[in-house]
């Protein structure tokens, strides 16, 4: 709790609460990063689930890098937004669920990619793939709900 209060009172926390354009600009970056990382996650998993089969999954590696760029944008912008009111966010159920599903969704994406590269059981990989999309959807839904709950 001490750390959260320290964060809230840090120059970054003050900046994001008080500057006129700071919050909307960081929030917009968060939306663009979200479109990028989730766009790549969805396109990649659609391919794994059997859509657009002619794309070799290895050629998708390039796209995967773009997904990482989107993820980094959102990690940085998300941390800045968190400094807005960390003492509230940290204990918010929708925030906790959001972070949890991003962690699980990220791990599942890695599991899916490993499964595809090693040619592991296709059925199982598809199952992980569907679960991966579901996790990222939950992350988005709970992220939106943070503004309402």
């Amino acid at each position, binding site marked *: 709790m001490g750390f959260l209060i320290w964060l809230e009172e840090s120059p970054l926390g003050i900046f994001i609460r008080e500057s006129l354009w700071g919050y909307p600009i960081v929030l917009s970056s968060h939306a663009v990063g979200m479109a990028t990382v989730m766009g790549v996650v969805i396109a990649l998993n659609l391919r794994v689930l059997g859509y657009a089969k002619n794309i070799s999954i290895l050629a998708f590696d390039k*796209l995967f890098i773009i997904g990482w760029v989107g993820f980094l944008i959102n990690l940085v912008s998300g941390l800045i937004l968190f400094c807005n009111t960390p003492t509230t966010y940290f204990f918010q159920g929708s925030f906790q669920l959001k972070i949890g599903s991003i962690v699980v969704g990220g791990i599942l994406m890695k599991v899916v990619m490993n499964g595809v590269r090693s040619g592991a059981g296709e059925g199982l990989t598809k199952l992980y793939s569907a679960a991966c999309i579901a996790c990222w959807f939950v992350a988005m839904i709970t992220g*939106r709900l943070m503004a309402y709950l």
Partner: protein
Amino acid sequence: MDYETYEPLATWLEATWLGEQMRNIFWLFPMMETIHFIGLTFLFGSLLVIDVRVLGYGRFINMNAALKFIPVAIIAFAVNLLTGIAFLCANPFRYFPNIAFQWKMGLIVIAGLNALWFWFGEHKELQALADGEDAEFRAKVIAFISIAIWIAVIVFGRMIPYVEY
């Protein structure tokens, strides 16, 4: 935009059944927002696949397979058009005079024209592209414009609540 210009349309939209439901059912607006976000990621992800291939960064993505993401993009756009109309009906007098909303709509029209240029001008030639083969410069320009405009659309959309007077 002048109040007189949009007033009749806004009055009509506000009185529609959809507008009424959007204002009266408390969970409907957030739900539509979430669907709008999900649609946005499907749209942007599909465009990324196509544009990354055309730009040459992902030139080993099979072109014909990449083009299969066009229907995904169109369906996602339709979902976002419908959810977007729902927001508009909920509170048209809030959106029409909003500068970020106006820019967003203008950019979407340009993005649409750009997509038509892609479809009628480049689509056939691109289909003949072998894996690893570079697309024409013209096609790359279209792909670049597409990514740039849609990023701007997302930014302006996100800005809508912050530029109200």
